[in-house]
């Protein structure tokens, strides 16, 4: 066996992961990818023997294959033959000091404490007459997270955009080590504040799998409510922001308000607009009762009507469509090569959604209708957001009408020692992956968080090639990626 097969939230003993030599590992990863799997994750398992671990996903059958190789100071890079590995290999060099040979550029990803200074980094340079650079950030003009964008332009046209992040790096993964501890769930909720439910669910699913804890149908139903409300709130907010970026103020104002309405529905069930303090290991923290769920449904129907009205305005304005269409195209091939996930992948024609492909405990009984776009431009990404809102609104009826039975929270047990598990959740930005490895004492000795933004930032850079620099805010908002989720 060259692969250990597992699935979403199915723990396996670490000892069962095959260890190949460096060359065979590389061949096997590439042949599996050639055979239709995709690179889900590439990381290093620390220890006396550092092991490079690859997780390869087969979306069609919901299977994850694991394989590893022991690495010393360097190994032959996967990137030249598997572009999706490029960012992981940069991260591995930065976190573990292991070089991937013949990687085109092992530039730091987050500039962690004690390494190269973030202010003194080098940028990719384009040479030539009339080529100029535009530097933006880390402090931006709006109320936005910090990041640096370096545009190489010829006139107004962007030849290359380099996105240099790390300003939000606050040591989340390191702090997760030793979990479960009293900060763990709160750290998970703050991986990305707008995805509190998504990352909290990923963490909870992970430790529930390791401790063989089963959540009640009611707890699962309420988690689905949390996740789908989060999706609706963020997508409708972004549609408003997209309208704002093209100067179409009516839809901007209405959608901005509607985002708040969706957040207030979340607060109705857990007290926090961002869903803090809701999802907890073993289930959810609050039992809303039938009356609150009924009221939520009534308010949701009202909100839905206003959303349809506001968004309809957007599609029927030719000035909006003219700005959205053919702007910032991410081709299907580029999206496949880079391993893009979530709405941007689907908007480029990739039929991939964890809720179906890796349903896991949360979505096993709640299957959404999955929309897939085609054109890969700002319009496709905007339309994708709307179709996902539409699908989520439909999906929400079931858990609200029939939230199932059982205790909202199940008692947690000890975690299985020396196991590895991957937990996948389709957050509103796309596929969230948490990887946990327990030590002999049943504590998480290694914790890896993969926000969809980690893969997708490069997709934005590619979508900007050949675009007018003035379209950057629009393209950027159509992706709306997370800085803190990337920086960790």
């Amino acid at each position, binding site marked *: 066996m060259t692969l250990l097969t597992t699935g979403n939230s199915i723990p396996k003993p670490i000892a069962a992961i095959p260890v190949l030599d460096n060359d065979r590992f590389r061949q096997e990863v590439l042949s599996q990818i050639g055979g239709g799997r995709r690179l889900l994750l590439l990381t290093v398992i620390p220890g006396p023997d550092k092991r490079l671990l690859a997780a390869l996903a087969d979306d069609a059958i919901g299977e994850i294959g694991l394989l590893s190789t022991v690495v010393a100071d360097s190994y032959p890079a996967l990137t030249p033959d598997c572009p999706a590995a490029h960012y992981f290999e940069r991260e591995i060099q930065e976190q573990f000091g292991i070089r991937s040979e013949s990687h085109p550029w092992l530039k730091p990803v987050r500039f962690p*404490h004690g390494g190269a200074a973030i202010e003194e980094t080098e940028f990719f340079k384009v040479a030539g007459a009339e080529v100029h650079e535009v530097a933006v950030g880390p402090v931006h003009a709006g109320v936005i997270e910090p990041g640096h964008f370096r545009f190489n332009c010829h006139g107004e046209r962007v030849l290359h955009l380099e996105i240099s992040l790390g300003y*939000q790096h606050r040591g989340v993964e390191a702090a997760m080590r030793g979990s479960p501890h009293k900060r763990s769930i709160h750290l998970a909720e703050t991986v990305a504040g707008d995805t509190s439910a998504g990352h909290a669910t990923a963490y909870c699913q992970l430790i529930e799998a390791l401790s063989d804890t089963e959540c009640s149908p009611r707890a699962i139903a309420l988690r689905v409510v949390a996740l789908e409300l989060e999706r609706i709130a963020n997508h409708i907010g972004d549609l408003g922001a997209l309208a704002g970026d093209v100067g179409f103020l009516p839809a901007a104002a209405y959608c901005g308000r509607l985002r708040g309405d969706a957040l207030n529905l979340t607060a109705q069930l857990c007290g926090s607009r961002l869903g*803090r303090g809701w999802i907890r290991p073993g289930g959810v923290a609050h039992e809303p009762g039938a009356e609150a769920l009924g009221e939520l449904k009534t308010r949701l129907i009202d909100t839905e009507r206003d959303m349809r009205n506001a968004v309809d305005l957007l599609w029927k304005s030719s000035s909006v469509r003219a700005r959205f269409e053919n702007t910032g195209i991410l081709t299907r091939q580029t999206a496949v090569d880079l391993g893009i996930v979530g709405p941007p992948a689907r908007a480029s024609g990739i039929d991939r959604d964890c809720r179906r492909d890796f349903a896991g405990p949360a979505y096993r009984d709640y299957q959404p209708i999955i929309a897939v776009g085609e054109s890969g431009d700002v319009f496709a990404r905007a339309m994708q957001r709307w179709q996902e809102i539409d699908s989520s609104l439909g999906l929400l009826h079931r858990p609200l009408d029939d939230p199932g039975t059982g205790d909202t929270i199940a008692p947690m047990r000890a975690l299985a020692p020396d196991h590895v598990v991957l937990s996948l959740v389709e957050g509103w930005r796309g596929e969230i992956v948490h990887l946990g490895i327990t030590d002999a004492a049943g504590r998480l000795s290694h914790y890896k968080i993969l926000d969809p933004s980690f893969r997708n930032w490069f997709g934005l850079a590619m979508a900007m090639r050949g675009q007018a620099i003035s379209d950057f805010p629009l393209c950027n908002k159509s992706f709306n990626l997370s800085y803190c989720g990337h920086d960790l």
Partner: protein
Amino acid sequence: MFKALKARARQGYRTAAYPAEEPSLPSLFRGRPRFEADKCTAGCKRCVDLCPTDALRLTSIGPQLDLGRCIFCGECASACPEGAIEFTRDWRLAASARTELFLADDRQPHVEALRRELRRLLGRSLRLRQISAGGCNGCEAEVNALGNVVFDASRFGIDFVASPRHADGVLITGPITENMREATLRTYEAVAAPKLVIAAGACAISGGIFRGHPEVCDGVEALLPIDLYIPGCPPHPFTILDGLLRLLGRL
């Protein structure tokens, strides 16, 4: 055009009547905590042990909470067997002095309005440059919400501006990562004096859930003098608005 007008009629007028009317907050909303120390059982420190940010400590008069560290998870209140801790729905949490944030009873933190000369200088407007420095984007999301039609901070003359050169002060969110230290200081320096510093959210006040990580500065305090503390994780938009209005002497 007609479609837009029809939609306008359907969407209606949505701006909150605040401050003329109290904001309506959900029943589970976790606002200012209230303590009844006489209910405490001797020797019990369950709340202190559970607190993820070590915001609680036991004093001779009972539990004392540092609102600047609290992330409002409510776990202390749920765990207390005697009901000595309760999170009320009071959204007014801001304070102008750090010491005001230590709560042990049923007291609301105090905001001292700006000096009259400074208020005269500001006139009817307050322009702030926001610096996002290492948090989770939760506080930024709620600051952004101040711009939507419900909260509409600009009706009070409060706006967030694109350049520090145009600002009367900075509103900082996040624990200030090592990677954002330089950029934060340089943005502050670019604001013309006299200038205000507002620390919004548990991270900016104390480092919040990231306190003690080698990657962060544990908040603004070590770097800049602070004029207004706005607790929360994240603070509700009404909490931010209330703090700003009280600082301006408008409430």
